């Protein structure tokens, strides 16, 4: 596998690196250590800048006006974009724009007019409502939200848990069981306006991420018309599953970015901090931690680029994406943990971004499919299909 970057990729990486260093990091010096958003004026100014750079709306498909980046270049950018305090979950504070829910690109023309295009214009926000209190790792079987037909409408009842942004969303992509099939062939995806009667945001769910909460929502006799079905009846899980697979590569790349920055900080500190008559970098215990960090970083980088390159070649990349997600999320957690150890007491404080990355990287081992599910995906592929 060729890990060298093309001239164009190198230029893009350097441009994003400079943007993070010159535009994002200086603003963070004045923000709360757990801040998740820029001041509106700063946000608007930087969005204008990314538009000038031609990088706004990174994940929007080219036919809808996006820059048309390949997966490898997108992953390389994600590695750079996450190298600041809020970078893991808010890379560059969203100034590169969003693409909306990926499933909207599969919508009907009418649904695109109502949901996709307003989202791309920044006029509407959507949320993705799949996980339920009954479980998130095996959503096809765990979904208990039920829909039943009543004339030309569907009536939904049930609840969803750990849903990001439901309280501020204009619409939700809701998955509900619409047949007696207990598995993936009985699930339908609905596009639901959040002001629909029966759509309730029940509570805020606090997590290790003190900058961002999730929500629990419920549907109480919520009526939606049949033209609000996204895709085909009882084929909604394929839409959800597609999203879960595609997200894994940039998700892994974001983890790696934080690890790279933590390693840079650890090296700088180890070379300057003196104890017992010499700098930390001269102690073998510290040298080994730095080396173990480097092994983890290079391992993760290799897995991410292998998955991205396979995707770009149009080859099957399910195993590689799962491996990249698992390796990057776990390795980056170890890297940040060692970097904190090298920094000693300072590493535990909010003076540095390490403690925030430490908390947020713990979530990354569960988000977008936990490590155990990634192993299950790989086992199925390696062992050949279903097995008992």
């Amino acid at each position, binding site marked *: 596998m060729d890990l060298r970057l093309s001239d164009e990729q190198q230029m893009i990486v350097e441009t994003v690196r400079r943007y993070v260093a010159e535009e994002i990091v200086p603003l963070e010096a004045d923000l*709360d250590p757990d801040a998740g958003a820029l001041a509106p004026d700063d946000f608007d100014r930087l969005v204008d800048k990314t538009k000038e750079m031609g990088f706004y709306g990174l994940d929007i498909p080219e036919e809808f006006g996006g820059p048309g980046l390949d997966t490898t270049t997108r992953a390389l950018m994600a590695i750079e974009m996450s190298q600041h305090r809020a970078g893991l979950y808010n890379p560059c504070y969203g100034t590169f724009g969003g693409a909306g829910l990926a499933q909207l690109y599969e919508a009907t023309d009418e649904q695109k007019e109502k949901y996709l295009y307003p989202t791309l214009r920044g006029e509407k926000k959507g949320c993705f409502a799949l996980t339920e209190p009954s479980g998130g790792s095996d959503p096809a079987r765990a979904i208990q939200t039920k829909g039943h037909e009543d004339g030309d409408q569907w009536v939904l009842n049930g609840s969803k848990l750990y849903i990001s942004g439901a*309280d*501020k969303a204009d619409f939700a992509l809701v998955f509900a069981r619409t047949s007696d099939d207990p598995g993936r062939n009985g699930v339908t995806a609905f596009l639901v306006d959040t002001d629909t009667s029966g759509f309730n945001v029940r*509570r805020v769910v606090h997590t290790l991420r*003190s900058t961002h*909460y999730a*929500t629990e929502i419920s549907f109480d006799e919520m009526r939606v018309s049949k033209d609000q079905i996204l895709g085909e009846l009882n084929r909604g899980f394929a839409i959800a599953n597609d999203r879960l697979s595609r997200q894994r590569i940039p998700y892994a790349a974001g983890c790696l970015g934080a690890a790279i920055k933590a390693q840079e900080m650890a090296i700088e500190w180890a070379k300057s901090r003196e104890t017992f008559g010499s700098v930390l970098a001269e102690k073998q215990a510290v040298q080994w931690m730095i080396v173990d960090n480097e092994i983890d970083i290079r391992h993760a980088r290799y897995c991410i680029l292998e998955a991205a390159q396979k995707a770009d070649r149009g080859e099957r990349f399910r195993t590689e994406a799962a491996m990249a997600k698992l390796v990057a999320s776990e390795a980056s957690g170890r890297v940040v943990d060692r970097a904190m150890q090298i920094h000693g007491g300072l590493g535990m404080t909010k003076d540095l971004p390490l403690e925030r990355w430490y908390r947020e990287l713990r979530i990354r081992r569960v988000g977008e499919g936990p490590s155990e599910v990634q192993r299950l995906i790989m086992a199925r592929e390696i062992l050949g299909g279903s097995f008992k």
Partner: protein
Amino acid sequence: MAGIRMDKPWLELTETAIEALPAQLGVYQIAEADGTVSKIGYAGGREAFGIRTALGRELAAGSGQTFRAELTHGYLTRWEELLMIHQHDHGSLPTGNADHPHRVGRLSVDGTSSKASE
């Protein structure tokens, strides 16, 4: 389960009461003499002495007569939750939060409305 309201006791906003607080991160509500909540704030990681520093600033600014506080490392999400509950109960944010720069979320809160005098 509905959004969780703050249920700490109200205290007079005085230097003595503030000094008795631990120097920790957290959230607080400030109320006028009639019990109207005038501000919901937080003490984040940049405050020199956590909630003591933040409330000392509120006292100096004359933000209100009484306060109640809750210590938490999840101060930002708890702060937003309290803003959401207040907006649900009163239809708007407290006057001290009128310049809140970001959209506050929508919460379906069960139960009675929250008042500073509770």
